[in-house]
């Protein structure tokens, strides 16, 4: 499979594919972080996560249209406003959903899976009714277009770099929030021992709602970032949901670091394979390997060995 490439070309291939993988990695991380928080910390399977992401994307689309119409001079900076709005809108809807639906289903993870799938159908059709079935594109501000030329062959697209920076910044933010803040301690306390956490005065219902909202909000940011590299349609979110769940499970559900490691390995594997075989087969092979490893090591890559 390396026939016909010179060594320097091969080096460039791996460098470029590595970068292409990083771009996929950013998408996975952005999607998976929110999911990992909700699944890992609350045991809730949110099948509508992709639709929350798309909500963020539509929010970005609307914001960009608003800026184009009313504030064209500030257009280059609209994205940051959009990202904030996407977070707020998705988090608010997330909190509402938690109140209306999810809180009745704790300890019934399979039922959350079915209920949120229903939610995802409703959200998709709502997008279709409101925005139309056609994909919408968001115009990139000028500074985000183009690429940085590293060598003759290796170019790094600026939007890809930007999305990656967002992904890493959010990953870091989540880490700090979960492991270095008082609020994070409360969340982890509730996860580990709910009655005890309640006994020491933690409002566990409030913590649940905030956690779910946070996960959804991060999905919103993911959606905002996603408009930079992909398209936004009513069912775009669904395309990622299975991949993302595999990322989370593969990483070990309760481990944020695991999620990131697994997002990295899956995206790199897929991206490297894509170069040497058709995209379809690369995807099949990646998924097969992940499922195979999960069958051999169901606890995922980074699971804690705990007394059960």
């Amino acid at each position, binding site marked *: 499979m390396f026939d016909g490439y010179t060594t320097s070309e091969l080096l460039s291939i791996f460098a470029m594919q590595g970068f292409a993988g990083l771009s996929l990695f950013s998408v996975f991380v952005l999607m998976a972080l929110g999911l990992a928080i909700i699944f890992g910390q609350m045991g809730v399977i949110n099948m509508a996560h992709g639709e929350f992401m798309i909500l963020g994307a539509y929010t970005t689309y609307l914001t960009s249209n608003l800026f184009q119409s009313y504030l064209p001079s500030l257009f280059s900076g609209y994205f940051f406003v959009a990202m904030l709005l996407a977070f707020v809108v998705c988090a608010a809807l997330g909190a509402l959903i938690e109140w209306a639906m999810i809180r009745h289903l704790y300890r019934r993870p399979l039922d959350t899976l079915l209920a949120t799938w229903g939610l995802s159908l409703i959200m998709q059709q709502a997008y279709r009714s409101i925005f139309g079935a056609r994909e919408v594109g968001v115009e990139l501000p000028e500074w985000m277009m183009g690429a940085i030329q590293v060598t003759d062959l290796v170019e790094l697209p600026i939007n890809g770099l930007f999305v990656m920076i967002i992904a890493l910044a959010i990953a870091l933010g989540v880490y700090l929030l979960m492991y270095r803040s008082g609020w994070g301690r409360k969340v982890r306390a509730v996860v580990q021992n709910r009655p005890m956490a309640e006994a020491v005065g933690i409002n566990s219902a409030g913590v649940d709602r905030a956690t779910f909202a946070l996960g959804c909000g991060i999905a919103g940011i993911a959606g905002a970032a996603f408009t930079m590299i992909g398209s936004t349609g009513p069912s775009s979110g669904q395309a990622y949901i299975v991949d993302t769940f595999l990322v989370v499970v593969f990483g070990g559900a309760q481990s944020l670091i695991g999620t990131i490691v697994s997002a990295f390995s899956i995206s790199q594997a897929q991206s490297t394979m894509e170069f040497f075989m058709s995209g379809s087969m690369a995807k099949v092979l990646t998924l097969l390997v992940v499922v195979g490893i999960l069958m051999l090591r169901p606890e995922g890559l980074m699971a*804690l*060995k*705990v*007394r059960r």
Partner: protein
Amino acid sequence: MNTVNSKDFLLAVEGLTVSFDGFKAVDDLSFYLDPREIRVIIGPNGAGKTTVLDLICGKTRATSGSIRFAGKELTRLKEHQIVHAGVGRKFQTPSVFEDLTVFENLEVSYPRGHSVMGALAFRRDAAVVEAVESVAETIFLKDQLDRPAALLSHGQKQWLEIGMLLIQKPDLLMLDEPVAGMSVTERKKTAELLKVITENHTVLVIEHDMQFVGDIADRVTVMHQGKVLSEGSIEHVKSDPKVIEVYLGH
């Protein structure tokens, strides 16, 4: 039933160690059980008592060490194989099938038709009914056979679970705090029950209630931080200064 040479130990635990992410819950533990012995394990919270039972019955896998039971190495067997080897385990909180009647609970535990095909072909014949009724008699539930287990009192559920072990005719019975949460009369009856059981079983019990321990134990093993602190008769361990220090504080 396995026949054991009387000079042999029924259960020999040697160098047993298990660690959870570096924390050694059980650390190089060794002890031996004679056939027909009643052994009680006591020790402060977190001493690793329940973990020892988990290790013997296969719920937890040992990091190292061996558990030999009637000539078989248990550490390599799966839970149901350990059950078939003759080890029964009762959990701390009663775990019976609440939707099934007492009769059905015992029937499910009856040692026949445990394979998939066996369970498909299983029929309730006279032998089953007889075994169930006889065990029910032993565990004081003869008149409760048709009640769903969910309607039993806490103590009755504990007995039912013991009955579910008895009907398997195990050589070794392991009971985790069998009298926890019981009334005084229930406690007395349980002690009687255990006496009956030990006529033809070896029993390994975890218990806190020293009065009860004194009533039933042949020998006592005191555990502390995953290791054996002291072993011997109840009087012996009660007077062991190491034990006193652990229980009364430093």
